[in-house]
Every structure is written in C-alpha cells, then in structure tokens.
C-alpha cells in the first residue's frame, strides 16, 4: 500500500446544537487517506458518515462545528478554518463532492454545459470558448454521447443516470485531488448503478483521483473500494482492506451489516436483521456504542470504550472481542458464504 497520506484526520469531534441540546455526531474519529486509493465509508443512516466527510469541506450545517481534533491536508489544518474564504480554496477545487440525488443537485434553470463551464471559470480561470471546449471534453469523459448537442440541454432532458454523470462531470471538472461520493448510486436503478460505479472507477484511474465512497450498502462497494471503513454512532469501528473486511470481518457490527445483505439470504428463511436502533447521540455514550444491539456483547462493552486492536498491519477493529482475555466467539455462519459467492450470470 502507498505510504503517502493525503488527508489525515485525528480524533475529530463534531457537535451540533439542536434546540439547546448538544448532539455529538462524530465522537473522536481518526482516519488516514492514502493517495490514489478508494476508500468506502459504510454505515447506517445517522452513523455520521456524511457529517464526517462534510467536515473536510466546510459544509457542516450552521448549527454544527468541529469541537476538537485535526484534519491535516497539504500542510494545513482544515479544522482551524473559520471563514468561507479559507474553504473556497479547498472546496470544489482540491476536494470535490458528488451528491446523492442527481434530481436536486443540478439547477433546473441552467443548461448542463453552462453548469460545468461555470465551475471551470470559477476554479480554473478558463473563459468563453476555452471553458466550453473543456466542458464538452469532460462530458465526453463521463460517457455522454453527442456532448456538443447535450451541452446546450437542460437537466430535465436527461435521465437519472445521465444526470448523475453530469454531477460527476462538475465534480471532476477542476481536477480535484480528492473526490467524495455521497451515496452516488442510491437513487439509481441497479443497471445504471453498475454503470456509474464503472465510470467512477475509470475516472479514478484516468484523473489519478483519491476517492471516498459513502454508502449504507456493503454490497455496492465490493467492486470499487480498496479499503473499507465501517462507521457506527460517529466513530470508525473497523477499517481494513476490502478483502479483509469481506472475508475476515472482526467487529460484530460489520458482521451484522454483512449478514443482513439480501444476497446472502435464503428464500423462505428470515433475513438477518439488526435489532434495535442506533443510540441517541444527544446523550453521552458509555462503553461500546453498539453494545445494546450486539448479541455478542461482553460485560466490559457496557463499561469501557474498546481501543483499536490490530488484526493485521492494514486492518484494525474497535471491539473487546479481540482482546486476548475475551472468550472465543464464532462469527455468524452465513458470512462463510461470501467467499463462495459468484456472479449471477454463469456461462
């Protein structure tokens, strides 16, 4: 694995104030992002995966702020940024984002080409014809046929998948170093989803991007991610290479996420479901946040927050089960099926 870290997050704490109450959305999460890799951040809604990445771009809602911790990027600490002017140097330009819903991410009143050219003018200082030519080139890069004609069209003339390609085009237009894709395919059909993931993989190679995928669906990330970070209640509970997470997961929450994939279900049997709901982040959390929903929870899980235990140099998990003193626990049986799973088309 490459050793050059592009972005390093240290003990990040992000809080929101809601009606006088304080919600701790990120509870001391740390992460190193390596150059050229693709990292998937996986978790349920409310786990803080979106907030975590929004804090790299200064896009937290007004009532939210970084309470402590560092976000080191290119010799700067982004956590110290206060003004919009600071952020404009980074946002869109060095770190760009692809949003979930292509129906709302584009302005319906501006032609698609204009929206891409606008980004080029703002960030790269291209003007007039140069901006237009570059925009057409990018449209072609994201797989839009007949880009000269499409340049002049409005978003409503595009299908959902094509619109998502345009959103991606806007994001990569400024040649960012880091591309954050927030649920890039959740709003799309399965066939289109596969095509968009193919496109992102291809662009990553071509533009030398470092990509962060945010998703709740572990099934989707197998094809695109080098590493996977599993997030729960504002903390990364397990992180490792993609094969380590799929074939040798260690945290009970990762087990639960994988087990509940419908691909692993047998017809007629119940699908594995995680009981309960994520914890209330308005209250301080004692011990392991997942403990109340965890059938494998030990007594210590309710008392002390587990540290990271190394499984391999690239794989670590925050669970007391990895402590040498912990009892041996068998992981769910259906996870063994993952390794044998083939595609659905056999020739």
């Amino acid at each position, binding site marked *: 694995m490459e050793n050059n870290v592009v972005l390093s997050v240290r003990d990040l704490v992000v809080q929101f104030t809601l009606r006088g109450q304080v919600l701790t959305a990120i509870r001391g999460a740390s992460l190193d992002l390596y150059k050229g890799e693709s990292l998937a951040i996986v978790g349920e809604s409310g786990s803080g995966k979106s907030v975590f990445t929004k804090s790299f771009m200064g896009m937290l809602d007004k009532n939210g702020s970084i309470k402590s911790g560092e976000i080191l990027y290119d010799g700067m600490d982004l956590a110290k940024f206060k003004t919009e002017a600071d952020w404009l140097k980074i946002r869109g330009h060095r770190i760009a984002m692809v949003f979930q819903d292509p129906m709302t991410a584009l302005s319906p009143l501006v032609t698609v080409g204009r929206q891409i050219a606008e980004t080029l003018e703002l960030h790269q200082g291209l003007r007039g014809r140069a901006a237009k030519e570059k925009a057409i080139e990018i449209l072609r890069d994201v797989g839009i046929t007949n880009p000269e004609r499409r340049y002049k069209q409005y978003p409503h003339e595009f299908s959902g998948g094509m619109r998502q390609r345009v959103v991606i085009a806007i994001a990569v237009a400024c040649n960012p170093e880091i591309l954050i894709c927030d649920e890039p395919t959740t709003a799309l059909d399965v066939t289109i989803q596969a095509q968009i993931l193919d496109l992102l993989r291809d662009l990553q190679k071509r533009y030398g991007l470092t990509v962060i995928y945010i998703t709740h669906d572990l099934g989707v990330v197998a094809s695109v991610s080098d590493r996977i970070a599993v997030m729960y209640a504002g903390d990364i509970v397990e992180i490792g290479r993609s094969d380590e997470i799929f074939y040798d997961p260690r945290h009970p929450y990762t087990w639960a996420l994988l087990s509940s*994939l419908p691909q692993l279900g047998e017809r007629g049997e119940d699908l594995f479901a995680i009981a309960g709901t994520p914890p209330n982040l308005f209250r301080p959390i004692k011990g392991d946040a997942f403990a109340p929903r965890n059938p494998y929870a030990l007594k210590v899980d309710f008392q002390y927050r587990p540290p990271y235990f190394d499984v391999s140099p690239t794989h670590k998990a925050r669970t007391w089960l990895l402590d040498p003193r912990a009892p041996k626990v068998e992981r769910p049986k259906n996870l063994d099926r993952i390794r044998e799973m*083939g595609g659905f088309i056999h020739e």
Partner: protein
Amino acid sequence: MSKTDVLLSARDISVTFGKGHKAFQAVKHVSFDIYKGETFGVVGESGSGKTTIGRAIMRIQPLSSGEICYNGERISGSISRELDQEMTRKIQMIFQDPMASLNERAKVEYIVAEGLYNVSHGVSHEYVHEAVSRALSDVGLLPEFASRFPHEFSGGQRQRIGIARALIMQPEFIVADEPISALDVSIRAQVLNLLQKLKRERGLTYLFISHDLSVMRFICDRIAVVHLGEIVELADTDTLYRHPLHPYTRALLSAIPVPNPEVEKKKKLLVYDPSMHDYSKEKPTFVQIEPGHYVLANGPELETYRERLAKQD
C-alpha cells in the same frame, strides 16, 4: 402452493397515457396470473411500466384495453358498487417512500384507520381504536404510537406504519411498490422479514414491484421481467436465476452487486441494447420454453435459447 388457485389474472392489459399523436403506451398487452398465497415479483427499470401495472391492479389507473379478474370476477372497468367496496378492502397497497406517503398533519391513529372510515360507515370509536392497536402491534410497533405524528418516527418505523395501514383492512392481496428501496440495509431486512411473516401467518398474496433483483431472489416465488411496458421473461425464481434467457434479464442479473471483492472486481457488465433483436422479419411472441418459463422471442431467438438450455442441463 397449488397452481390451480388463480387469485388475480391480468388478460392482455394495456395502459395508455395521453391521447392522439401524444399517446404513450406504458403497458403493452401484458398478461399474467397470480396464484393464491404466492409472492409475484415485477422487476424492471424506471420507466418500464412496472408501477403502472401495480396501479392498474389497484384500479387507480384505468386500462385502455384488456381486463383484470380477481377470483374469476372482472374488477377493471365499470363494476358494481358492492364489488368496488369489496375490492377496496381486499386489495391494499404499500408505497415506496415512507417519508412522502404519510400525512404529516395527521396522527398515526387516523393514518392507520383512514381505510376503515372510508369503507365501513358508522364504525364505533372503540372498534377503530382496537383495530389500530392490533394493526400496530402486528407490525412490531407499540400501540401507544397511535397518538404520535409521523415525523416522530424513523424511516423503518414509518414504513411499518404504511404496512399497518394496509393490514387494518384485512386484505387478501397486497401490491408492494418498491417497499424497501428507500430504506437502509439493516432496516430493509427487518421490513422484508415482516412482510414474509405476515404472508405466512395470514396467507397473503403479494405483488412485489422492485428494480432490485437481489431482493427479489429472496422474497419472490415467481418473477416477471418488464421492459418498456412488455413482459420479456416470466419464470419461477430459481429458474429465472439459473437459466436467464432474455438478454435484458441477463443484463439485470449481471448488474446485481456481489458482496465478494474478488468476483466483483473481475465482473463483466452485460448491457442490454434493444436494437440487438432483429424483429424485421418475424415478430416476437411470448412463448413457454420450459414448464413455467416464458420468454418473449421470435423463431431464431427461441432456437438459440433452446440450445443454451440444453447445454446448461
């Protein structure tokens, strides 16, 4: 499941939007039977007409031709008032987006009970209260929730309210239009299990509409694949996954994400291009190619499909 009990049958149904030269045929001469107690899946991309089929069965969308029969009785077109009321009760729907499908200004009690008010006049307050409590506990919610508003619930809980609203009518047949697409993976499993459990306990019949074949494999007994308003392939679930024949079905299957990085990274995506069919000489027909397995194809295509089947067995 005995194949003789057809609960609902669609005969050559078409749905057209608009008139004259602007007319758009969303569903084109589709026929299928749904047997009592089974889960019948309709799968296709957005714009394929799968939701329109569901809406036609719900009688929200009038047919432009063909007819729909329930228990042998025609329920499409103009029907008697008694039959209309009966069908309103017996066929219920679960909607896709639990955020949009619940009235934000009504309490859960009213949302769940609304169907009762509409169908049976003069029901007593006690009876409604009782029925709402029962429906809520059937879907795993506390009866106390009846006095709350939808915004106090999470997505998974809201979808349960949507299911309770359908159950209170004691339906026989439920049209579930993408009931889990808007939900998180973990919640998705809970809702799927709930639907399975209700089916087992009450002998419900489902029409399950989705674009996601990975979920369909798990829940459906038979699946119809819809492309641009036509059923291109229909088979029981195992057969469809083992011998997919139509190129569109194969494209859909190839797009299912496999949670296995080694397989997934090498996977080849099949893309369906309708122009690959040469229908200039011979029009395709909907043919039974092996027992219970139907595919839309013309003569030469059937030849190649048969060869493929022979090779696989």
